[in-house]
């Protein structure tokens, strides 16, 4: 039976504010999965804490809504244990770039084949409007009542410096191109980050119109295998580019782990796995 969008919807109704950018992102994910015809039972979505972190509630997948900032290492565990699954990690700008920021570089070094959707609304939404690492300098928030005084974190150059093997920026209110990018990310073998700009309606620092004005797709001929070009375009702020900045093939964590198993068993046990008996005897 052909699947429909419904197959990717859980029985739980989204609880975001009316007009929240996250609604569109949810549908784009569902559409990308539908287009790629991935069975829901083979998908695991792990999310952090935040409005964006609620996303996993609404997907008809094996969903794990974990703690604040730990979606990436949790998803890593899922994928390492069961490489056949399609694994998502989802979280906000605070979740992913603040408290959880230390994990990305290391998941990237292992090139875990997960799809990390980082939903940036430039604010801590769920806790009702505090400064996030991407809140613009000078704006007033509940924890910056006299204006944000830290520089804004510039995520794309950072992901590139981590050598994440697939790095894209997407406009959360442009579902068509978002779906397209998500499909590419899911199809990519290795760690992919889709950095999605999404307007928060209740604590508005971004809006659909504003996004449209500043965002522009990367040039058609953008070479996705050139780190320096990617960096240069990542640093551009007029326009701010969307699309796939960088994509390279490297062994995935699955490959790396399998290689070790094969090598060890080949070299020391004629290609077979060790029996428990043999393991114990090696300590005699």
């Amino acid at each position: 039976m052909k699947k429909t969008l419904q197959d990717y919807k859980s029985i739980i109704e989204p609880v975001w504010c009316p007009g929240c950018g996250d609604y569109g992102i949810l549908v784009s994910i569902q559409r990308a999965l539908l287009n790629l015809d991935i069975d829901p039972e083979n998908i695991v979505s792990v999310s952090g804490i935040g409005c964006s972190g609620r996303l996993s509630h609404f997907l008809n997948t094996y969903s794990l809504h974990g703690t604040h900032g730990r979606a990436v290492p949790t998803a890593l565990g899922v994928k390492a244990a069961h490489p056949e699954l399609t694994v998502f990690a989802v979280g906000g700008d605070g979740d992913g770039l603040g408290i959880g920021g230390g994990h990305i570089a290391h998941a990237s070094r292992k090139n875990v084949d997960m799809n990390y959707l980082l939903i940036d609304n430039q604010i801590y939404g769920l806790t009702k409007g505090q400064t996030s690492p991407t809140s613009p300098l000078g704006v007033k928030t509940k924890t910056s009542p006299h204006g944000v005084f830290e520089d804004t974190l510039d995520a794309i150059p950072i992901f590139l410096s981590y050598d994440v093997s697939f790095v894209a920026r997407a406009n959360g209110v442009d579902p068509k191109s978002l779906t397209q990018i998500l499909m590419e990310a899911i199809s990519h073998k290795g760690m992919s980050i889709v950095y999605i700009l999404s307007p928060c309606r209740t604590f508005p620092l971004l809006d659909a119109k504003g996004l449209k004005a500043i965002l522009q797709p990367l040039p058609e001929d953008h070479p996705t295998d050139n780190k320096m070009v990617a960096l240069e375009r990542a640093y551009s702020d007029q326009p701010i580019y969307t699309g796939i900045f960088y994509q390279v093939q490297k062994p995935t964590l699955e490959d790396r782990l399998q290689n070790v198993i094969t090598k060890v068993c080949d070299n020391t046990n004629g290609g077979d796995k060790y029996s428990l008996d043999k393991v114990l005897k090696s300590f005699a």
Partner: protein
Amino acid sequence: MLIIAETKRVLKNFMHTHPEMGTLEMEGNQNHSETDFAIRIGGEGGEGVISAGELFAQVAARTAYQVFTYITYPAEIKGGFSMIQIRIKHEKIYSMGSTVDYLIAFNQQAYDVTIKDLKPGGTLIYDPDEVEIKEDLNAECYPIKLTKLVVDATGAKLGKNVVALGALGHLFGVEFGVLEKLIKDRYGAKGGDVIKNNLNALKAGYFTAEEGNWEKKFKLVSDTQAKEHYMLISGNEAVALGAIAAGCRFVAGYPITPATPIFETLTDLMPKVGGRAIQLEDEIASLSACIGASFAGEKAITPTSGPGLQLMGEQLNLASMLELPLVIVDVQRGGPSTGLPTKTEQSDLKFAIYGTSGEAPRVILAPSSVEDCFYQTIRAFNISERLQMPVVVLTDQSIGYRKATVRMPDLSKIIEVDNSVSGETISIPSPEKIELASRIQMDPEKLNEYKRFLDTATGVSPITSPGLKGGQYLGGGLEHDETGKASYLPDNHLKMMRKRFKKLETLTHILEKNPPEYEGPEEAKIGVIGWGSTEGAIREARMLAEQRGILFRHLHPKILSPLPESQVRNFLAGLKQVIIVEENFTGQFAHFVKAKFGIKPIEIHKSEGVPITPEEIFTGIEKVARIVDEKNIARL
């Protein structure tokens, strides 16, 4: 200055027992049925004191004797005091003992710190260029210029330990070829010069002892059968092997002393059995990855120590809320904070039981010996799979680094328990019957009305894993209803708290069915409770006490939380005084027992970073025995 031992008491004890299992030839023509002696080597961190001792222990383990080692070393890489103690006995060894028969002192500090532990008439081997000994020392003394010998033999200062190994080998009649092979096995990978130098150092030691006419004690002849029946493993290795035996195929970890060897052993073993070992950037990520792996259906473990366990608090809570099985091993070290990373202490118990915000059930196990580390780890996996909750295994530095001869488990006794249909029965495996529990699985027929967090009679719910069509569910850290959907309703919170804690009651009921686990005579009026690595010391203290006519009962629960209440009450019944022995400052288990049972125990705490000895426990108990006696008198 060579002082001849007054008595040869110690020597008398060396004997040849189990002839069927190997050969140990006595030099002194005595025949006694009991052998029990301890060797200690002390020097500066980085001098290889410990590796020399471990190599010697390996030789000893391949005889008919049992071996037990204890190690202490500084938190620095080089410098500071390092030592290894090797106890060798004709039967099972329970502790490192209170004194030593042989002391090998590399330097003055080693001599000064440990000479008090040498038995009168014991043997001292020392470097006369480094160590000045007391005039009136009551010991048989053999000087050997370790540094000079190694420099002469190799041109460098490295390798004093191998010289000492050679000398020790000669003293105990080990054939040179056996030692040679050991060295080649250990340093083989390092190639030409390293091997050559080490062998030269070995010879220097061996033949110096020979030329010095050191009185040979007996021959430790290697024995192939012992090799088949026993492993010489550390507590840390036993945990790693237990995990492999339990079917765990996923480890995520971050190095931390003194738990690192568990992780190191598992990084080596996992690929061999087709499993996955991953080092992560910190402890938070490590436990997160285990949660992910468990969610995906795998048995997962992470080893750590105090500072790491703290960092895991939030994820431990999450695992409890997600009702996911997983095992955390905490090899306790001296605290608080960075504390005494290479020293032992039993001070993480409170954290293990109480150390999460909010109230999240979990089970705490504490193995009591190296062998027990193997079985309790298996048990930890079984309980965690059956109850769907995290299990924390508490060991400590002393048991983690202790090596002991452990009987090879009988693999034919492994029973795979398939529990996919009913979640209602849970039994606990024991060394006699190695049970391996698989995850309680959802009946695929019933997926229509599937509720992941169904509130059952045991509190344990059906569980699905990714890949099973129709089994998709939401697991989350927010309070949720039976389906997993977030709910903050007052009734629901209470209901789900009850459900989660009910699982501990389920376990308690099962534990109550086990036969009482305490030792010692019914008629004893004193009861001693300990936990974890002190079991052997308490057991030996009990023997010491019995020799002097003081009887006590000894309870040493392996499952610390939830405590099998009626078992403890059984133990307490009829006692005049309870003593609780722990290696910490505040009396953590005592606090827990007091709150649960309303008793007023006498507490013996040791908070010095080193294990409590049988003598120390005995001394404490003797005092209590006097009080109890007085009480008896007062009552008559």
